Structures are given as structure tokens and as C-alpha cells.
């Protein structure tokens, strides 16, 4: 078995050495894990879809700790993966350093901008999607208080919170929006107990709709919302199925499309570096509707959200982006 593996490995290496035309794309799954029911899982789904549709293979590794970023990125590039897709804002400083060393390899970074000639930066307009989520929360709320649970306290998560707040205020200017961040270290992405406790604290302050943008911590938030009978909004992947009946919607971020497109464009030799913005117009972000939340979203809510969506796309409503000036208008 081991011998077989070695032989296959050697064969693969020779094949890769033969020319970059044979290069497989590579995907580095970020901390939080492949099946986080959220961000990483969405990326994985995109890669799998590409694999099924094209019949081609791709390389994949999963980070286990913060310290492995550079090593993993370099190894992936050296094994001949092209393009190498990395997920998450935390990779930016590492990629900044690694990309110039492999000028013949293309990289794609999701959620952050890295200004290098061989890097494609895919960013989403999470503030717009969160704005729609905020509108739905405010429309569904009976208490006039809605809340937000973030994962690690970083500008990207503040961007979610800020968009959510603006959307809620657009519907009801007097609404109270409670914001909580789980922590300041990467452990904040994996603490469902604390997520649940934050949600309980918010409920006791009157919140009846909670929006979780917190990776694995969000599992605890959505669970507590279901236990306590309030509505919840999921994030990144469509999480509506997790607790049918209490999930109002999910702010879907099509990371899968970003990964699929990076793989496919390289395959078709039309990979472009530079910044790519996936927004409401291109369905890069959206609010999820399916059979699990159909009963919770009435026609009025839907039409108001659709109207706002059209206005944002047309530029009539401008949603403030927290990351543009590190502040949120109150």
C-alpha cells in the first residue's frame, strides 16, 4: 500500500514536472475546518462541484494551526498547483510574502485584497447582503430589538455588523441593535458555548432576531435561538435547514462560486489577476430562501427586501462599508 502510494506520488510529480498545462488547481481550507457549515464548507462545495462537472482533480489541504500558513502555501505552490486558492483575510500578510517567490503560479485570495501581479483578490460586498438581512430582522422583530453575534473581532466581521445595523435602521429608525463579539483570538470561531451564552444575554435584553457571523461559534448561536424560540439568521452557507421554523434566512456568500470560477477560468486559460468584487448584482451575496424558511417570510417582507436589493444594485441606496474607513455611522 505504502509502496503503491510512493509510486503514484512519483508518477504524479513527473506528470507535474512535464508542464504547467497539466497543473491541477489547489485549495487550502482555512482554520475552522472543511465542514464548518459555513465559509470553508462553501469553498469546498465549489471545488467539489468543479470536480464533478469537469472530471478534473484538484489538490486540497487543510490548515491545522496559524503557524502552518506559509509552509502550506509554499508547499502547494511547489507541488505545482495552479492556481492556489486561499481562504480568508488572515492569509493576506502571508500571501503578500509568498506570491512574489512563485511568479509563475497564480493565487486567489478570498475576502481580502493582496496587491501582487499574480494574485486575484475576490471580495464580497458583505455589507450589502447584511443590509438585507438587517431589513428582514427588523421586519420580523416584534420587540424592536435585534442583535448580532460576531466571531473574532476583526474589521471584516464589523463590516457584517455595520451593514446589518444600517439595514435594520432603514426599516425602523428607533430599533435597538445589540452587537457582541465572541473574542479577539481565532478560538472565537470555535466556541459555541460562549456563542449560546451571548445569545441568551441578548435575548434577556429583548432581542428576538439574532444574526450570527461567527463560523463554528454560530452553531451555538443558532441552537440557542431555536431553544429559546427566537428567530435567527445564518451566514456564508445556506444554514436554513439547521433549525427549520426559527431560521429567518441566511446571508449567503457565494464562496463556492469564487472557488469554482477561479478553477474554471484557469482551466480555460482566462484567469485574471486583480480585484474581483462579487456583489448583490452578480449574486455573490444574497439572502437565502428555501422551503425551510418560506413560512417565516411573508410577501410584504419579500417585496420590501427585493425593492431595496434593486435600489442597492442601481446605486440608489448606498450601504456604508465599515472597512473603507473603519467606522460605522450610528
Amino acid at each position: 500500500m505504502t509502496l503503491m502510494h510512493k509510486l503514484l506520488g512519483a508518477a504524479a510529480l513527473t506528470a507535474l514536472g512535464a508542464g504547467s498545462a497539466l497543473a491541477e488547481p489547489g485549495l487550502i481550507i482555512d482554520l475552522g475546518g472543511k465542514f464548518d457549515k459555513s465559509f470553508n464548507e462553501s469553498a469546498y462545495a465549489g471545488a467539489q462541484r468543479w470536480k464533478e462537472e469537469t472530471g478534473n482533480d484538484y489538490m486540497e489541504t487543510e490548515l491545522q494551526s496559524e503557524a502552518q500558513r506559509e509552509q502550506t502555501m509554499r508547499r502547494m505552490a511547489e507541488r505545482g498547483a495552479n492556481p492556489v486558492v486561499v481562504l480568508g483575510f488572515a492569509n493576506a500578510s502571508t500571501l503578500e510574502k509568498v506570491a512574489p517567490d512563485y511568479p509563475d503560479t497564480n493565487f486567489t485570495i478570498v475576502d481580502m485584497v493582496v496587491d501582487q501581479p499574480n494574485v486575484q483578490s475576490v471580495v464580497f460586498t458583505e455589507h450589502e447582503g447584511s443590509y438585507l438581512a438587517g431589513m428582514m430582522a427588523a421586519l420580523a422583530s416584534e420587540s424592536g430589538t435585534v442583535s448580532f453575534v460576531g466571531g473574532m473581532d476583526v474589521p471584516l466581521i464589523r463590516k457584517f455588523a455595520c451593514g446589518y445595523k444600517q439595514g435594520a435602521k432603514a426599516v425602523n429608525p428607533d430599533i435597538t441593535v445589540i452587537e457582541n463579539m465572541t473574542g479577539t483570538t481565532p478560538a472565537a470561531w470555535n466556541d459555541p458555548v460562549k456563542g449560546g451564552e451571548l445569545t441568551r444575554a441578548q435575548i434577556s435584553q429583548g432581542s428576538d432576531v439574532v444574526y450570527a457571523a461567527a463560523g463554528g461559534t454560530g452553531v451555538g448561536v443558532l441552537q440557542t435561538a431555536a431553544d429559546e424560540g427566537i428567530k435567527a439568521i445564518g451566514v456564508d452557507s445556506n444554514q436554513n435547514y439547521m433549525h427549520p421554523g426559527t431560521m429567518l434566512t441566511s446571508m449567503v456568500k457565494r464562496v463556492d462560486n469564487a472557488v469554482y470560477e477561479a478553477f474554471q477560468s484557469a482551466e480555460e486559460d482566462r484567469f485574471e489577476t486583480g480585484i474581483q468584487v462579487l456583489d448583490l448584482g452578480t449574486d455573490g451575496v444574497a439572502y437565502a430562501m428555501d422551503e425551510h424558511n418560506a413560512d417565516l417570510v411573508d410577501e410584504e417582507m419579500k417585496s420590501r427586501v427585493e425593492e431595496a436589493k434593486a435600489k442597492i444594485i442601481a446605486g440608489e441606496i448606498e450601504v456604508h462599508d465599515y472597512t473603507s474607513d473603519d467606522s460605522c455611522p450610528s
Partner: protein
Amino acid sequence: MDLLTIIQILDSTVRLATPLLLACLAGLFSERAGVIDIGLEGKMLVAAFFSAAVAAATGSVWLGLAAGVTASVTFALIHGLASITFRGDQLISGVAINFLASGMTVLIAQDWFSQGGRTPSLTGGARFSEISLPGATALREGYRETIADGVEPSGVSAIYWDLISGHTLLVYVAIAMVPVSWYVLFRTRFGLRLRAVGENPGAVDTAGVSVVRLRYAAVVIAGVLCGLAGAYLATGLAAGFVKDMTAGRGFIALAALIFAKWRPWYALFACLLFGLLEAVGNRFQSIDILGIGIPTQFMQALPYILTVVILAGFVGRAIPPRAGGEPYVKER
């Protein structure tokens, strides 16, 4: 801040303090017997995983609890084997336990459930449900009705229906463990010998009592208590296991143990204090005291700061058991 808010914060304090308290008492037994245990975190984590996994597979929270405690005791015995029988370094053995737990749980979970190192969400009988004490529901309804009538109630009744009633079984078990631990350690022959083993194992040995057996007993008790703590996290507070879900609570429990100067009742208050700090931090993102805004991060760091203050000897001295950390070698 009205009374109800204070009660809600205290309610949250009790929930957050429970895993700390169980882990802290586990450390107390182990260290009182002279076996330093920094593997509390790892034992809680395996217990959290196996309790959630077995509960998910069988649908019974009790089987889950049994599996969690068994797993934790197994890890405790590994720690005992390395540090008591083979006289290895107790700190290194503890660290190894933490690493083993962190890696092993995710690996088994992935192989078992294929959900990326987590267990499926637990529902119904696979979770500990909240126990409503007699009369709590009626009082709660009464409270709601007074609000509906437009009268602002005092909220005193909430002390019963919110703070005292409505927790899961393990919370009451944890609190009951405090007097039990005190009694066992300070009022029984076993407890006297156990403490003696942590202070002067040579004397215990001279008296004809087995040091090794006592230390193993202490380590197993620690395993059981950590097992309860882990099961509470995964099947009481949360609904399933997530990678590294203990999130440093084992280390906070160690800090509480030092803060409590290795005494059961002090441990209760230390854990409640640490729980309170977290609950307040959860409730308020920043607190204004005399016009100065204190960020929540400060509240999160406060348990560690307090421990350092205690260790530095500013607020009384914390003197650990004298034979702690040393393997016992019988003279020949």
C-alpha cells in the same frame, strides 16, 4: 440596572461557572494528592466529545454521560500511569494529554460522523434538559401576568424561577460536589490520607498506607469530575461537539484553583467570580465606571490578572501542597 438584569447576569454566571467548578474540583483532588494536573482541559475535551458522540449515536444523554466520564477517566489513568507508576514529569504528561485530546477528538469525529470533526446536533433526549423546580413555572407566569397588567413587578420572584430553577441536572450536581468534596477531604480518613500524600508521602508510606493507590484514587476522582464538566459543555450548554470547544476553560479552572488556595469552598467562590466576570463581559461590551470605559477584553483577562496577584502574594499567600509535582520514590 434593575433587579431582573442582575438576576439574569447571575443566572448566566451559574451556567458559566459550572464547568469551571467541576474542573476546578477535579484539579483540587489531584493536586491535593500531589499530582499536578494541567491536563484538565484535555480531559474535559475528550469527555465533551464522547458524551456528544455517544448521545448522538444512541439518542440517550445518560449513555453519553457514561461514555464521557469513561473517556475522561481513561485519560486520567494514562496521566496516572505516566506520572505515578513510571514517575514521569507530571507537567509534560499533562501537556501530552491536552495535545492528544485536541487531535484525537477531531480525528475520531471525522471518521465517525464525516462532518469535519464535529458531532451532529443533539436533539430531544440526547441533551440534558432544564429542570423546572416545583412552583417555578407558576411564579414565572405570575410575573409575566403582572407585566401584562401594566404593573412593574419587583422581580424578587425571579430569584427563584430564573436563578435557582431552570438549570440542567449537572449544575446542581456540581454545586453539591462542593460540600461533598469538603467532607471527603477534611472529614474522612481517606481525605486525611489523600492530603497527607500531597504534603509528605514519605510519612504516609511509613504509616503503611500505599502512596501509589491513594494517588491513583485521586487521579480517577479528577477524571470523573472532568468527565462531568465535559459532558455538561457538550450536552448541557451546547448541543454537540465542536473542535476545541473547551476553549481554555481547563486553564481558567487551574487559575481558579490557585485563586482558591486549593480549598473546596473557596473554589466555589473563585469559579463564581470568574463566571461572573465572563457573564458581565458578555452582557456589556464596555462598562463605564466613573466615566472611564472598560473594554470587555479587560474583563476577559481579569481572571488571569487576579491569579497573578494572588500568586505574587498581594492578597494572602497561595501555598500549594508541598509534594506537588514530585513523583514518589520509595527509599530502599
